């Protein structure tokens, strides 16, 4: 049953702007990395490019992408006012909302993969133009994948918050306000100690050197996200859409 609802949810994304969004966010990071490398005078280590790209992803692009993606996926139903039709079907209602959450998680996973692959490709392309800037040191792929994976898991809480708001209100304004506000504080107070408890800063804390920050943000982001997801499914499937 759940797979059927999820398959329908993914088919709805066909010819929507989700694909453009999924490509553009990691693509912009890659474009930035490409030109940044070309303007350099001396070769830099791989870590600088890959960790730099994952950092930009974690503290800015990821929260903004989640804000946009959740708004887009919720408005696929708010726009044509299709909730009544969906909720009248002989399906457990929680599956409709769970499918939305899984769709966002899947697209976000693809974007995370995109950050890794497109950044690597951007560096390779820039080096093809200026071979003297070829990165030094080791290309530590497992470490980069681990960081991206942790960021992905730590983003669960902010993703569920954004999705809950986007599904609850038919206007996209509340979701945007919360998303922009959260990202703003994540950017201006990246190193603040309290930031480890701010959902929008949890992904960037996966790059923290202090172990407690990383563990706390990962635990709260992923664990709290799962708890909040259960609450969201309970609330949305019970509430009346008038």
């Amino acid at each position, binding site marked *: 049953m759940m797979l*059927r*609802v999820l*398959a*329908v949810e993914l*088919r*709805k994304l*066909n*010819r*929507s702007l989700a694909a453009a969004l999924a490509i553009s966010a990691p693509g912009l990071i890659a474009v930035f990395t490409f030109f940044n490398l070309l303007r350099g005078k001396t070769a830099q280590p791989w870590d600088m490019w890959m960790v730099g790209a994952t950092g930009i992803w974690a503290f800015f692009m990821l929260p903004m992408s989640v804000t946009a993606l959740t708004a887009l996926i919720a408005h*696929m*139903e708010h726009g*044509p*006012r*299709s*909730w*009544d*039709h*969906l*909720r*009248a*079907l*002989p*399906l*457990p209602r929680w599956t409709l909302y769970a499918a939305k959450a899984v769709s966002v998680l899947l697209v976000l996973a693809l974007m995370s993969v995109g950050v890794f692959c497109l950044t690597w490709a951007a560096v390779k392309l820039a080096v093809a133009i200026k071979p003297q800037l070829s990165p030094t040191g080791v290309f530590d792929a497992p470490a980069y994948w681990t960081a991206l994976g942790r960021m992905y898991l730590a983003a669960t809480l902010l993703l569920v918050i954004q999705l809950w708001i986007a599904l609850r209100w038919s206007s996209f304004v509340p979701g945007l306000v919360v998303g922009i506000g959260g990202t703003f504080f994540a950017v201006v107070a990246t190193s603040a100690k309290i930031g480890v408890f701010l959902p929008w800063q949890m992904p960037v804390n996966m790059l923290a050197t202090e172990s407690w920050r990383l563990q706390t943000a990962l635990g709260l982001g992923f664990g709290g996200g799962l708890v909040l997801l259960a609450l969201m499914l309970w609330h949305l499937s019970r509430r*009346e*859409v*008038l």
Partner: protein
Amino acid sequence: MLAVETRDLRRRFGPTLAVDGVSLTVPKGCVYGFMGRNGAGKTTTLKMLLGLIRPEAGTIRIAGRDALADRLGAARCMGALLEAHGFYAHLSGRENLDLSRSLLGLKRSELDRVLDIVGLTPDAGRRVGGYSLGMRQRLGIARALLGSPEVLILDEPTNGLDPDGIADMREFLRTLPARADATVLLSSHLLGEVEQVADRVGIIHQGRLVLEDDLATLRAGQAPQLRLGCDAPDRARAVVLGLGLTPGPDDGRIILAPGADVRETARALNRALVEAGIGVHELAPEARSLEAIYRDITAVYPTPQQEAA
């Protein structure tokens, strides 16, 4: 056997009692016209039948199933066309139907069947964004027909259609129970339209079901009337009263006693009018319209403003 049965449904929104003790009885295989002005409580009642809104009190049975205890079971027996169609404009009509078909776990051949019933097969490959309102209504009915539900709930199916679209929809609805082997419960505020397609009607007014009956029974129980056109209405009124007949609220109509012989009364009236020197250019029996019945019934109930006063 009843397709839909409710008992004392009640729902309040804040201080407003939107639905107040509504008990519907919809026999299997009929077209039931659920009428009332905008805001009377039609959509709220239909949403309660579909499980979209919880009633504060009352019971709902759909095809014999308790819809409040077994929403999924009842939902399997129903298809609905709601006021908000909820189509994805970037997908084609067939793709939109296919999403609902997949959710319902039906065979792909079901798409051709429902598209054929609503006559939308040639346009099924076009994007819904380019559909006319009439085509969207038909696509909505096709979606409601997926899985051959026993009960079709159509909320204002003629809403927003042009006169040609309304005529097409009327013809379509009239034959729908036979074509789809389903009971049709349709809501509308267009009384003339309901009159032409429904077998049974229910009138909801200020949240209360003020009348429910078979249309034929309703008409038979109403006093017949004569439509009169003459060149001296004031003098004609005196003649009408002299024959012991009752002029209607407007001088053009004469209401007869229930069971009166319409032809004999018309003959006697015509003779009396001509003898009085009044030129008669029209004298014809006339069945009372559903609208007239509706006005008579709802006039008994005060409006909220009158109640407040």
